């Protein structure tokens, strides 16, 4: 594995040139997903986080964090509880500001566009940056099929290829063979692990560029966890993935790069192997060897 930018901060790094107009400006939202031509997915997008601050009321949860998320890589964010891992990823798709009293400052640059620019439509941001939550949260009123289609319908996309896109997403999430005969049964009738893969399929159906996973396997049994980890391995061929995890073995298994956070700050980021064997910072070493956290 090569990881050229290991440990490098974003300040000097030019982001990948944008080969295609970003789908972010306002006025383009309704039906935008419908007109997007399916394209071969190989090159994912780089995300540059620059001097990001986040608050919950007066509580400063992320304190000026700078981090590069490499395209087609899975970046793990590790750190003790309450260190701001989840807040950080929720800032990448601007879900952080949905919490009453929460706000964020700084830059998150995707495809050369700062997602916090005031001209950017927050709804469009969330279409580009998908999210999988800690607890599987399929829509209880919808069938398996409708849950996956929900992403398309909720974003106003219409079209004859709905069935095809649902099937493609379910296949990509490794769930198709298990549910193809009962697409009409309720999404909540699946097991926890299946529900989480259903949620991943739902996220994939909108065709995002980046996928954020906030402890996606922490509520699952070991077998289901393994399935999710295999899935992350497959998905990074096409997406940029950020995965928050409490489980250091999981980070070691799935992530190309690992970032260690402590008290709202980034302590260290580097190739996963280096982070777990020979980290630069003493605190990282103490954390990965289980001396605290």
């Amino acid at each position, binding site marked *: 594995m090569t990881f050229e930018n290991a440990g490098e901060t974003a300040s000097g790094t030019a982001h990948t040139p944008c080969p295609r107009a970003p789908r972010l400006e306002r006025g383009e939202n309704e039906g935008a997903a419908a007109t997007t031509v399916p394209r071969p997915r190989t090159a994912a997008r780089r995300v540059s986080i620059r001097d990001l601050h986040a608050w919950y009321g007066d509580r400063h949860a992320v304190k000026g964090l700078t981090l590069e998320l490499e395209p087609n890589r899975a970046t793990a964010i590790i750190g003790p509880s309450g260190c701001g891992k989840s807040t950080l990823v929720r800032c990448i798709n601007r879900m952080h500001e949905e919490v009453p009293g929460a706000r964020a400052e700084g830059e998150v640059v995707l495809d050369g566009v700062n997602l916090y620019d005031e001209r950017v439509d927050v709804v469009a941001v969330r279409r580009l940056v998908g*999210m999988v*939550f800690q607890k599987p949260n399929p829509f209880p009123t919808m069938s398996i099929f409708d849950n996956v289609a*929900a992403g398309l319908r909720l974003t106003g996309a219409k079209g004859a290829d709905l069935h095809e896109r649902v099937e493609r997403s379910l296949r990509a999430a490794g769930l198709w063979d298990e549910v193809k005969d009962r697409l009409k049964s309720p999404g909540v009738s699946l097991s926890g692990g299946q529900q989480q893969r259903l949620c991943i399929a739902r996220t994939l159906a909108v065709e995002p560029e980046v996928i954020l996973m906030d402890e996606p396997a922490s509520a699952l049994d070991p077998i289901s966890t393994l399935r999710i980890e295999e899935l992350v391995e497959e998905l990074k061929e096409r997406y940029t993935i950020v995965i928050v995890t409490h489980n250091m073995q999981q980070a070691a298994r799935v992530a190309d790069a690992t970032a260690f956070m402590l008290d709202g700050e980034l302590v260290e980021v580097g190739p996963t192997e280096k982070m777990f064997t020979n980290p630069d910072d003493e605190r990282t070493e103490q954390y990965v060897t289980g001396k605290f956290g």
Partner: protein
Amino acid sequence: MSVLPAVSARRRRADALARGLLALGAAVAMLPLVLVLYYLVKKGAGALSVSFFTSDPTGAFLGDPGGVRSAVLGTIEIVALATLIAVPLGVGVALYLTEYGRASLFGKAVRYFVDVMTGVPSIVFGLFIYITLVLSGFGGGFAGWKGSVALALLMLPVVTRSAEVVLLLVPGSLREAALALGAPRWRVVARVVLPTALPGLVTGALLAVARAAGETAPLLFTSAVVSGTSYDLGQRMNSLPIQIFNDITQPSDRLVERAWGAALTLVLMILLLTVVARLVARRSRLT
């Protein structure tokens, strides 16, 4: 003595006494309800017949007083219009309170006034409509739709409060999931929040309807009392509570009997609604 001593005699006595008192309290509370139902059936069942439901009051003091068709239909029409006014408005207010203005000052003020409105006596709503719509002669004098407006005012806080509680039960994780997919907020509300809360919203609305259907005071000054069946909400319109109110004070046994029959009919209608509400609530996925 073993490590698990027997329950002491004192605790046994205290337990028996407390259980007895609570059971007695429950029985005393049930007594009036049972007696009400007993008298309703005893005095009202005899009045029920096919012609009771198919004929209008004749207005004749002697001889055949007629049935309650106009009152049953009037109640259904007036309450249906009141529901059409109060339910969309109440659910809309609840949506604002839960989805948009949860922490805002305006939202808090609205919530406070809705609570105050819940405690306003129904006769006050009747008087308010009497002054503003009937005395002012707006669209004529007494009219069925004015009764509907008075009932809608009465239902509004009930619908709003119950809808708010149900909408708050919709897990925030579902809203987050939909928002994170890139859905505009109005679509999240329309396609995720409302469908998830639907059974609870229906139950709350039906209970508000049941409450409004039995109200007399708001109709007394607004839709007045007539004999004939009317399908025109712009005219005076008969209703069950008003029919009962009028009949029971008449010095005629047959009219008083009709009042009991009408009361039984009203209770049965409300019972039916409540059963439907229960059945819908059972389908709820939010428990």
